[in-house]
């Protein structure tokens, strides 16, 4: 078996008294797209920063490319591509200069950087903006440029922190498309996200984090199989009536989960569950039958929804 690129055992991170990451274990294999899914404040970014060797480990064991970030930070960072949550491009410089300067930080030869810039701008669909200043670019373009910048050194591992947060749906899909392409080319991706659809779309394997801990791990399909049913029925009742009817839903499907604005029925066959709802004489205002998602897994594991 190939050596994992990242190995973490009992990894913890504290800021003063605040335990941001609490004793977690994971491994990331070459070529996989590995996700950290969890709400804001779950400890995903802190974990990423430790892997990126830009934040010291408080306790536990962490190896990236077999190296200790404490003693070999620069050597690790030389092989990483980091795409931070907030674009930190130099807005006064042009697209091209941003990439060039970044390439020089990696000590790449100047001609090599120039060649690489053209390839990366092509990849990021920004070739026609090569000479533009960064400031007027759209949010999606800046994001793609930040990703292109993170690839300047042909990294062995690309770390993407909340890659599509703040983007409109069209820009998100374009970005996903670029990330698929990277994945197809064999890149190892580490992605944090609080969007379950993003995690499902992009990640081969993921861990679900909550309050600094890993509460679930596996492929998206496997997590859904383990922690949820195949299908879910969402029921909305008229305002004020939900509390009175929840008891009458007991026993339908495998689990009933009342949320503030709706009730979820977890069942392997949504149609059967709906039939039973109607048979019991209940008349929800709205019903929706759907597949289980990672959102349901998260709800089951933590009792909370992902985006609150």
């Amino acid at each position, binding site marked *: 078996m190939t050596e994992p690129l990242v190995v973490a055992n009992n990894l913890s991170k504290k800021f003063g008294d605040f335990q941001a990451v609490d004793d977690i274990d994971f491994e990331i294999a070459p070529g996989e797209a590995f996700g950290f899914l969890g709400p804001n404040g779950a400890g995903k970014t802190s974990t990423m920063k430790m892997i990126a060797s830009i934040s010291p480990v408080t306790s536990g064991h962490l190896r990236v490319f077999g190296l200790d970030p404490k003693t070999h930070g620069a050597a690790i*960072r030389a092989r990483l591509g980091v795409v931070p949550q907030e674009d930190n491009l130099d807005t006064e410089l042009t697209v091209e200069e941003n990439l060039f300067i970044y390439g020089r930080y990696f000590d790449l030869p100047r001609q090599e950087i120039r060649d690489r810039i053209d390839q990366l701008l092509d990849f990021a669909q920004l070739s026609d903006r090569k000479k533009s200043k960064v400031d007027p670019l759209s949010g999606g373009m800046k994001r793609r440029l930040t990703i292109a910048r993170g690839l300047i050194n042909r990294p062995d591992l690309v770390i993407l922190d909340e890659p599509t947060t703040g983007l409109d749906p069209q820009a998100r899909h374009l970005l996903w498309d670029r990330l698929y392409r990277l994945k197809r080319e064999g890149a190892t991706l580490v992605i944090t996200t609080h969007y379950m659809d993003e995690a499902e779309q992009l990640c081969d394997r993921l861990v679900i984090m909550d309050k600094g801990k890993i509460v679930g791990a596996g492929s998206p399909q496997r997590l859904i199989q383990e922690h949820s049913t195949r299908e879910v029925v969402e029921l909305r009742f008229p305002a004020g009536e939900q509390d009175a009817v929840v008891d009458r839903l007991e026993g339908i499907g495998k689990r009933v989960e009342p949320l503030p604005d709706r009730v979820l029925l977890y069942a392997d066959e949504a149609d059967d569950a709906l039939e039973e709802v109607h048979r019991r004489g209940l008349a929800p205002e709205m019903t929706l039958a759907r597949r289980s998602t990672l959102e349901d897994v998260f709800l089951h594991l933590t009792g909370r929804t992902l985006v609150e």
Partner: protein
Amino acid sequence: MSSATMRVIEANARMYRQTWRGSIVSSFAVPIFTLLAMGGGLGRLVDAGGQTGLGSYLGFVAPALLAATAMMTAVGESTYPVLAGIKWTKSYHAALATPVAPADLANGLVGFLGIRVLFNLLVYAGLMVLMNAMDLIPALTAVLPAALTGLAFATPVMAWAASLDDDRALASFFRFVVMPLFLFSGTFYPVTQLPEWVQPLVWLSPLFHGIELSRGAAGVAGSPALPWWLHLAVLLALFGVGLVLALRSFTKRLWT
């Protein structure tokens, strides 16, 4: 100097090449206006009065203006841009996701700042020569102590700026620290003109030491109360201690 430090200097030079036009006014116009006003305007008045024992007033002020300009440039570059790199544009965080470490970053910023101050001073000194404020050789020899003055301010100020949460303190710093230093460090008159009890206070001003050293290097008589090596020692100590503090401050702030 590490290779990562050199790359930070190179990156800053490339950024400056794109943005220097914006800073040209503050870099040169203000010092030139000061020279014209003080040398041409005030200087004529002073020289007409005679009996100052200073030679020409313009010649007296010119080397001090080199040191004062170095201070202004260095303080300007060590405050807002540092806070911007850490908090606003977060460009420092971008650099630190590469093999560059916080200490390389701080060293590189100081290195580039030194080059920039030196370059500004050379241009300024050249203009002074053209305006007959100084002869060529004294102008060139005064540039080095003036540049050291800039660096002696840059490192401690950078260390402080890197620890700030916002820029509120900076405006007060310019108003209540930098401006008084500019006015009371003997830039425009020998400090012996000040009341005797004030003079030891002036010795606490790093700019005073920079000015005395720059005047000495230009062969202009200043306030000869203290030996040149003491001025030099004060500036070097400030630079050195400031650099250690800046490295520490950058690491503490950016390596969390």
